[in-house]
C-alpha cells in the first residue's frame, strides 16, 4: 500500500532513459498494475510453511553447515516482497525506482483470477517446487534475493547497463519485407511479418538475457561456482560467457548426444573457460543434463548457483527466468507503438522449455486481443513416437522440480524425445505454458524436422538471415498461420537465435 501511494509521484529526475522508461511504464501499465497488484497482493501469503518467520541464519543456535553468505540481513521476510524495513539493501527513493518497483510487483500479473505465479510458485495447478528437501532452503534464499534485487536500484542499473553495452540490447524489431511478400495472397492481402531479432544479441540467442541477470544475482549471493545445463549449447555458451565476464567458475552439463551435434558450441564453451561435462546417463540429451545439474546442485548447494536456462524447473526459476527475458516483450510493445502505432496482433515463438516464448508473451498475456502462439518440435511426426511435442502429446506430471506437461510412458518414466534441434529436444515444458494452454490463452502447435529445415532455408534465402533450427520451427508455422490471417495483421515472430551453430546439421539434410 505504501508503494501504491509512492507510485503517484511520477516526476523523476534521473537520466533521460529512466524517465522515458518510467513514463512509458506508467502509461501502459497504470491500469494493469492496479488490477494485478490488487490481485497479487490478495493472493500472496507469507512463506510457504507454517513457519511464519524466516529464521535468522546468521545467529542460528546450532551451527548449520549452510550458513548464509547473503549480504542482506533477512529477518522477517515474506516471499512476496513489500519493501520490508529490515532489509539493509539500498532502497530506492525516487520515483523512477518506484516505477521499477511497481513494475516488478505488478509484473507477475494474473490470468482468470489466478496469479502467475502464487507464493508457492504455482500457475494454477502447475509449477511448484518438487525437489529433494536438501534444495528447499536454497530455493527460498534464491527467491528472497530475487525479490530484494528487483527493488535494488543499483542492481537494476548495473543489469540494464550490461544488457545495453555488453549484450547489445535493445534488439531490433525488423520488418521482414520479403517474407511478408512470400505470404501475400494472390489478391495482394496478407499479414505483416516482423522479426524480433534476439539472434542479434551477444552469443547469438536470447539465452544471454537470463544468464547475465542470474550471474549478477549469484555474485550478490556470494556464490563463486556456477553450474548450468544445456541442450543446443546456446545457454551453455551464454553461461560460459557471463562467467568469463564476471570471473566465476563455470561447469556446464551437456548430453553426450548433444555434444556431438553441437560440437561448435562445445568448443566455444571450453574456449570461454568453462568445463563441459558430458552426460551419458539416460538418453544423453537435455533432460539428462538437467537431472545431472540438479544432482550437482543438491551436492554443492552451499557454494554453487544453478543457472537454469529456461522457464522450467522448481520455483522461483520459471518466474525468475521469465522476468529476465520479459525485456523482449517490453521492447516489442514499445517498438510496435513506434512502428505502427499499435500492438502486435499475433506473437509466434518456438517452445522447448519455453523461455524465449515467455519472454515475448509475458508482456502481452493480459492483452486479450493479442494472440499467443507457441510452436513445439514434432520431430519425425506426432504419430511417430519420435517428437518433442510436450503440450500436444504429453500429460501432466512432475519433471525437474515442476508440475507441468511432459512426455512419459505408462509407468511415469520420462521418455526420450526427438527433434532435429537440440534446444527443443526436451520432454518437459515450462509450467506457465501448461497453464496458458489449459486456459486457452495461448495456442500450441508443432512442426516436423523437415518443415523446420525448409523454413531454415526459406528465411536464409528470403531475408539473408540464417535462423537457429529452433527458431525455424516458429518460422515454419507461418506457412500454416499466414493464409488464415486477415490483411494487415501484425505478426511478431521471436527470432530467438541465429543458425551458425546448425550449419553442419543442416549440411547433412539440405541440398543447397
Amino acid at each position, binding site marked *: 500500500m505504501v508503494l501504491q501511494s509512492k507510485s503517484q509521484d511520477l516526476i523523476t529526475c534521473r537520466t533521460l532513459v529512466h524517465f522515458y522508461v518510467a513514463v512509458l511504464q506508467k502509461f501502459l501499465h497504470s491500469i494493469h498494475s492496479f488490477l494485478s497488484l490488487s490481485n497479487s497482493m490478495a493472493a500472496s501469503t507469507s512463506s*510457504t*510453511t*507454517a*513457519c511464519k*518467520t524466516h*529464521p535468522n*541464519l546468521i545467529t*542460528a*543456535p*546450532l*551451527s*548449520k*553447515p*549452510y550458513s548464509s553468505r547473503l549480504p542482506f540481513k533477512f529477518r522477517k521476510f515474506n516471499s512476496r516482497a513489500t519493501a520490508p524495513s529490515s532489509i539493509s539493501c539500498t532502497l530506492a527513493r525516487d520515483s523512477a525506482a518506484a516505477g521499477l518497483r511497481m513494475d516488478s510487483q505488478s509484473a507477475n500479473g494474473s490470468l482468470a483470477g489466478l496469479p502467475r505465479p502464487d507464493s*508457492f510458485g504455482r500457475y494454477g495447478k502447475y509449477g*511448484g*517446487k*518438487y*525437489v*529433494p*528437501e*536438501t*534444495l*528447499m*532452503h*536454497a530455493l527460498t534464499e534464491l527467491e528472497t534475493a530475487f525479490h530484494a534485487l528487483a527493488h535494488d536500484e543499483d542492481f537494476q542499473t548495473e543489469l540494464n547497463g550490461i544488457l545495453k553495452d555488453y549484450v547489445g540490447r535493445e534488439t531490433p524489431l525488423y520488418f521482414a519485407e520479403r517474407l511478408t511478400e512470400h505470404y501475400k495472397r494472390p489478391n495482394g492481402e496478407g499479414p505483416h511479418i516482423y522479426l524480433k531479432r534476439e539472434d542479434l544479441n551477444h552469443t547469438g540467442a536470447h539465452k544471454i538475457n537470463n544468464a547475465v541477470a542470474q550471474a549478477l544475482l549469484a555474485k550478490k549471493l556470494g556464490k563463486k561456482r556456477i553450474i548450468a545445463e544445456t541442450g543446443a549449447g546456446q545457454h551453455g555458451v551464454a553461461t560460459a560467457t557471463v562467467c568469463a565476464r564476471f570471473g566465476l567458475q563455470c561447469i556446464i552439463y551437456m548430453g553426450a548426444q548433444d555434444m556431438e551435434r553441437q560440437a561448435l558450441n562445445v568448443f566455444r564453451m571450453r574456449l570461454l573457460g568453462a568445463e563441459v561435462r558430458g552426460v551419458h*546417463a*539416460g538418453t544423453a540429451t537435455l*533432460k*539428462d543434463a538437467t*537431472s545431472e545439474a*540438479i*544432482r550437482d546442485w*543438491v*551436492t*554443492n*548447494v*552451499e557454494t554453487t548457483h544453478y543457472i537454469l536456462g529456461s522457464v522450467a524447473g522448481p520455483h522461483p526459476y520459471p518466474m525468475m527466468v521469465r522476468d529476465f527475458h520479459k525485456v523482449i516483450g517490453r521492447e516489442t510493445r514499445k517498438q510496435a507503438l513506434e512502428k505502427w502505432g499499435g500492438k502486435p496482433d499475433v506473437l509466434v515463438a518456438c517452445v522447448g522449455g519455453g523461455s524465449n516464448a515467455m519472454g515475448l508473451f509475458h508482456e502481452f498475456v493480459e492483452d486479450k486481443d493479442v494472440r499467443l502462439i507457441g510452436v513445439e518440435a514434432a520431430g519425425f511426426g506426432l504419430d511417430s513416437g519420435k517428437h518433442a511435442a510436450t503440450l500436444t502429446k504429453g*500429460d*501432466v*506430471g*512432475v*519433471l*525437474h*522440480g515442476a508440475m507441468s506437461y*511432459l512426455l*512419459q510412458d*505408462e*509407468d*511415469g*518414466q*520420462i*521418455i526420450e524425445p526427438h527433434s532435429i534441434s537440440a534446444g527443443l529436444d526436451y520432454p518437459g515444458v515450462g509450467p506457465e505454458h501448461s497453464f496458458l494452454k489449459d486456459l486457452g490463452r495461448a495456442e500450441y502447435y508443432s512442426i516436423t524436422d523437415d518443415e523446420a529445415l525448409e523454413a531454415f532455408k526459406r528465411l536464409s534465402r528470403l531475408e539473408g538471415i540464417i535462423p537457429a533450427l529452433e527458431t525455424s520451427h516458429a518460422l515454419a508455422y507461418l506457412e500454416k498461420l499466414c493464409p488464415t490471417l486477415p490483411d494487415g495483421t501484425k505478426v511478431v515472430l521471436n527470432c530467438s537465435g541465429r543458425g551458425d551453430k546448425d550449419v553442419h546439421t543442416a549440411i547433412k539434410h539440405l541440398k543447397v
Partner: protein
Amino acid sequence: MAILSSLKLTTTSGFLQLNTKKPRYPVHHLPSPSQTALNFPIKKLLDELNPRDTLTLTRASNISISQTFTKLKSQGKVAFIPYITAGDPDLSTTIQALKVLDSCGSDVIELGIPYSDPSLDGPVIRASASRSLAGGTKFNNIISMLEDVVSQLSCPITLFSYYNPIIKHGIENFMSTISQAGVRGLVVPDVPFENTQRLRNEATKNNVELVLLTTPTTTTCRMKDIVRASEGFVYLVSAVGVTGARPRVNEQVPSLLREIKEATNKAVAVGFGLSKPEHVKQVAEWGADGAIVGSAIVKVLGEARSPLQGLRDLDTFAKSFKAALL
C-alpha cells in the same frame, strides 16, 4: 522343530512353485538360463543361514513401520534398514534378496522403484535403476513380485519412489495397490513437505506410513514441521548431496539428531553415505533409532559377477551391518 521344518517346507514349496509356474516377471536378464540352477543353491544358502526364531515370525504386512521401531526401542535395539532397487539385476533376484535381507535380521527393508530421472541418487543407485529399467522392470511386475514374497517376510517393506510415477498411476490407485501388496511405508523424496497432505491422506486410508526427509540444510523451523508430520519414522539425510557411499559420516549428524529429538519422540533413522559397519555403529552411538544402508548394498548385489554371487555377498555384507548394531 516341527514348526521349523514346516517353515522350510513352505520355503521349499515356494521355490518349487517358481519352477513349475510361468514366471510373472521378466527373467531374461538372468545370465544363468536355468531357474532350477539358481534356486537350488539359493535354497541351500537359505538353509545354511541361522533360522529365525519362528515363534516371533509375523507376516511382514501385519506390522507397521512405527510399531517395528517401538518394539525395537523397547528392546534397546537400533534398526538395520537396507535399501535395494527392485529389478536389479532382475525381479527374481530381488525376491531372493528380500528373503536374504530378512533372514539376516533386517528390521525394515526399503525397496526402490526404479526411475528414469532420479534427482537424489548418485551413480551407484542410478546405474542400478538403469539396469532394472533396461531389463524391462515395470511397476505392475514389482507389485506382483511383492504380492508373492511379502507373506514370506518377517520385516515390513517401505517403498522408495519418485513422485512422477505416483502421479501417473494416480495417487489413490498407487496407495491402494501398494497397500494390497503388503507395503507398509513409503518415501517420496521429491515432494516438498507443503505438498504431502494429499499423499498422507491416501497413505493413511491404506495403512501406509508416509516417511518424510529432513536434511542438514533444512531450517530448524521447517524441520519441526516435517518431523511433526512424518509417519513411520523420520528420515534424516546425513549429508548434503545425493545417495552414495562416503568415507565418513557427516559430523553434524549428532547435533542434527539432538535437534530432531528435542522436537519429537518419533524414531529417527539416518541414511545416505553409510557404507561400512563402523558407520552404522557410529550413528547408533550418536542416538539414531535406525541406520539405512543403500548404495553400498546395491553395489554388492547389482555389480556382482552373477546374481548368485551377489546374493551370497549380500548375505555376508548385510550380516556385518547387523552385527555392528548388536
